[in-house]
C-alpha cells in the first residue's frame, strides 16, 4: 500500500485472547466492508477467531482479556518477547474489566459458585500491564472497530496514536444530549476517557467507565456530586468499581 507515493510498511499482526468474552476480538472481525482495505495494510498471521492458520512471526500483538492464570502469564510473556508492539485491547486487558467483579469474593467461593465440583485453574484478575508492559492501550467494552482502524492507520504511518485525554462529557454535549444526570441517571461521563461518542448516555444508560479514567480525572468532585444528587453509597461504589477503572481512588469503601 502506498500513501502519496510512499510505500507503507505492512506489519504482521497477531490477535490473542485471554479471560474475556471475545467481544473485542469479534469487533476486530466486524465492519466487513473495510476488511479488504484492512488486509492491505496488515498481514494477519495468527487470529484464532477468524482462521486456524498459525503462520507465526508477528510484529504487532493485540491482546484481549484479563490475565487470570499462571499459564496466561507464561503465554503473555512469550507474546511480549516476540511482539515489537503490544496493544492491550479492550477493557479487560486495559483495566481488568468486568472479570474484576470476582475479586469481591473469596476465590474458592467464586469458583465453586460457577463450576461446582469441577476443578479449574484460576487466580487473581490482572490487567495486561500488571504482567508485562503494554505499548498501547486500546480502551472500551467492547472496543470500537472504527477506533481500531484509526489506530492501524496511525501505526502504519508511524504516528504515535493520541487518544482523547478529556472526558466523555465533551462528546455527549457535542451530540446535544440532555444530561442524564439531570434525568436522575447515574453517569461517570465526567471522569471517563472520551472516544466512544458518548454512546451510553446517548441511549440514556449513563456512563459505566469502560474506557478507563480521563487524564487527571477529578474523581473526588464527581463522587461528591453523585452524593448530592442522592445516589446511595452502594450505588456509587457498584458503578465506579464495575470495570475496575478507578481502583486507584479510595474514596468509597470496597464492596462486599
Amino acid at each position, binding site marked *: 500500500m*502506498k500513501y502519496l507515493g510512499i510505500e507503507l510498511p505492512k506489519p504482521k499482526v497477531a490477535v490473542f485472547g485471554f479471560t474475556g468474552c471475545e467481544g473485542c476480538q469479534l469487533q476486530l472481525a466486524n465492519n466487513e466492508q473495510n476488511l479488504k482495505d484492512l488486509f492491505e495494510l496488515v498481514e494477519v498471521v495468527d487470529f484464532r477467531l477468524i482462521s486456524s492458520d498459525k503462520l507465526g512471526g508477528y510484529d504487532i500483538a493485540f491482546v484481549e482479556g484479563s490475565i487470570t492464570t499462571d499459564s496466561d502469564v507464561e503465554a503473555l510473556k512469550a507474546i511480549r518477547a516476540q511482539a515489537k508492539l503490544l496493544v492491550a485491547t479492550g477493557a479487560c486487558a486495559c483495566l481488568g474489566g468486568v472479570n474484576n467483579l470476582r475479586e469481591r469474593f473469596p476465590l474458592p467461593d467464586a469458583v465453586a459458585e460457577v463450576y461446582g465440583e469441577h476443578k479449574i485453574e484460576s487466580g487473581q484478575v490482572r490487567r495486561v500491564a500488571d504482567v508485562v508492559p503494554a505499548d498501547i492501550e486500546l480502551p472500551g467494552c467492547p472496543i470500537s472497530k472504527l477506533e481500531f482502524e484509526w489506530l492501524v*492507520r496511525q501505526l502504519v504511518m508511524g504516528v504515535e496514536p493520541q487518544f482523547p485525554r478529556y472526558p466523555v462529557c*465533551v462528546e455527549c*454535549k457535542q451530540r446535544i444530549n*440532555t444530561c442524564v444526570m439531570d434525568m436522575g441517571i447515574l453517569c461517570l461521563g465526567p471522569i471517563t476517557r472520551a472516544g466512544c461518542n458518548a454512546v451510553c448516555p446517548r441511549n440514556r444508560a449513563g456512563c459505566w467507565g469502560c474506557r478507563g479514567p480521563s*487524564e487527571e480525572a*477529578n474523581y473526588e468532585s464527581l463522587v461528591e456530586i453523585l452524593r448530592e444528587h442522592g445516589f446511595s453509597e452502594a450505588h456509587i461504589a457498584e458503578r465506579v468499581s464495575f470495570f475496575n477503572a478507578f481502583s486507584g481512588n479510595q474514596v468509597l469503601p470496597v464492596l462486599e
Partner: protein
Amino acid sequence: MLYKTITKENFRRMIEGLMEDNDVFGPKWRDRDKNGDKVYRFLKLNDFDELQMDYTRTYSSPKNFFIPFKETLSTYDLAETEWDQQIRYTVHPRVIVGMRACDINALRKLDEVMVKSAFPNPYYFARRRNTVIIGLDHEPLEDCFCRSVNADVVFKGFDLFLTDIGAKYFVAIGSDTGYRIVDRFGGEEVSEADQDAFKSMKKRIESKFKTQVDVTIVPELMDLEFESEVWERWGDKCMSCGSCAMVCPTCYCYGVEEDVDLSFTHAAKQRFLYSCNLIDFAMVAGDHNFRPEPHIRLKYRYYHQFRGFVEAFNQSLCVGCNRCGVACLAGISPKAVIDDLNETEQR
C-alpha cells in the same frame, strides 16, 4: 428600524410557508428532567405544532448551526504523488425561529471574530448568510443575567424579532428579507393599541430580572488579582469536562485534525470545537502543558469571556444565558464565580 405586527394565525401561515422551501428549526422538547420540567432543543420542524413558542431556554445554544461541533473544512482525493482538494461553503437555506436576544447577541459577537476580523471564516459566513433568524422575546428566567452584560435587547443580527403582545406578535424588522417575509404573510401596520401593548410588555420583561452579576470592574479585578484564591476554590470542583464551553453560545475555541481513510485514497481536514477547560488544550509537542492545572484553565475561560474579549471588542463575550451554570454538575456558574471574585477581592 421598521415595525409591523402579525396575527398568530398569520404567523402560523408564515412558518408553514417558510417550511415549504427551507429547513426550519425551532425549539422543540424531547426530554423531561427529573423534576418533570421540559428540556428544549433547537431541532428541525416537521410540523408547525412542534414549535414551542412558550419555551424557556434550550439546554444547548444554537451556536452549532453556525459553528458545528465538527465540520469538514476540505476533502482530498489522493493520487500517486499529488492530490485534488475540494472545499465547499454551500449551505441549504434555513430559518431558525425562536432565538433569544442573548443568542442573537452571541452571534453578533461571533461576527466580530469570524466575519469582521482580518481573517474571515468563510464556512461561518456561508452559514450566517444562508440563515434567516426570527428572534423571540421572553420574560427572563430566574437565573438570566443578560441584562448585566448588555445582551438583553438586540437591534441587529436578525431578520425578524417577535414580541408576544397577546393575539399578535409585535415584529421588529431587521433586514430586507425579513421585510419581504412579513409582507408576504399578512404583516399589518402598528396601531396605537399595539404600541401600548408592546411598551407594557417590554416594561413587564424589564421588571422580571432577578439575577444580577456585577461586572463593572471585573476586567481590572482579573488583572490585579491574577493569583486570587477564588480560582483554586472553583478549580477544585471543576472536572475539566468542557460542558460549559460546549453549551455556551459564544465559546468558539477549536482544533483541526487531518485523517486519511483506510484505503489511503481519500483524506479530510476537520475542525472541531474544543474547550480551554480540557486538559490538553494548551498541550504542545513534547507533552509540555502550559496550563496543567484545572483552576488555571477555568480562570482562562473566565478571562477570555470577561476580560480578553472586553479588551479586544469593548464588550464581554458572555451574554448571560447561564447555560454553562445549568450544565455544570459542579455548580460553577458565572454568577457564583464573579460574585465570589467581587466579594473576595473588592474589599
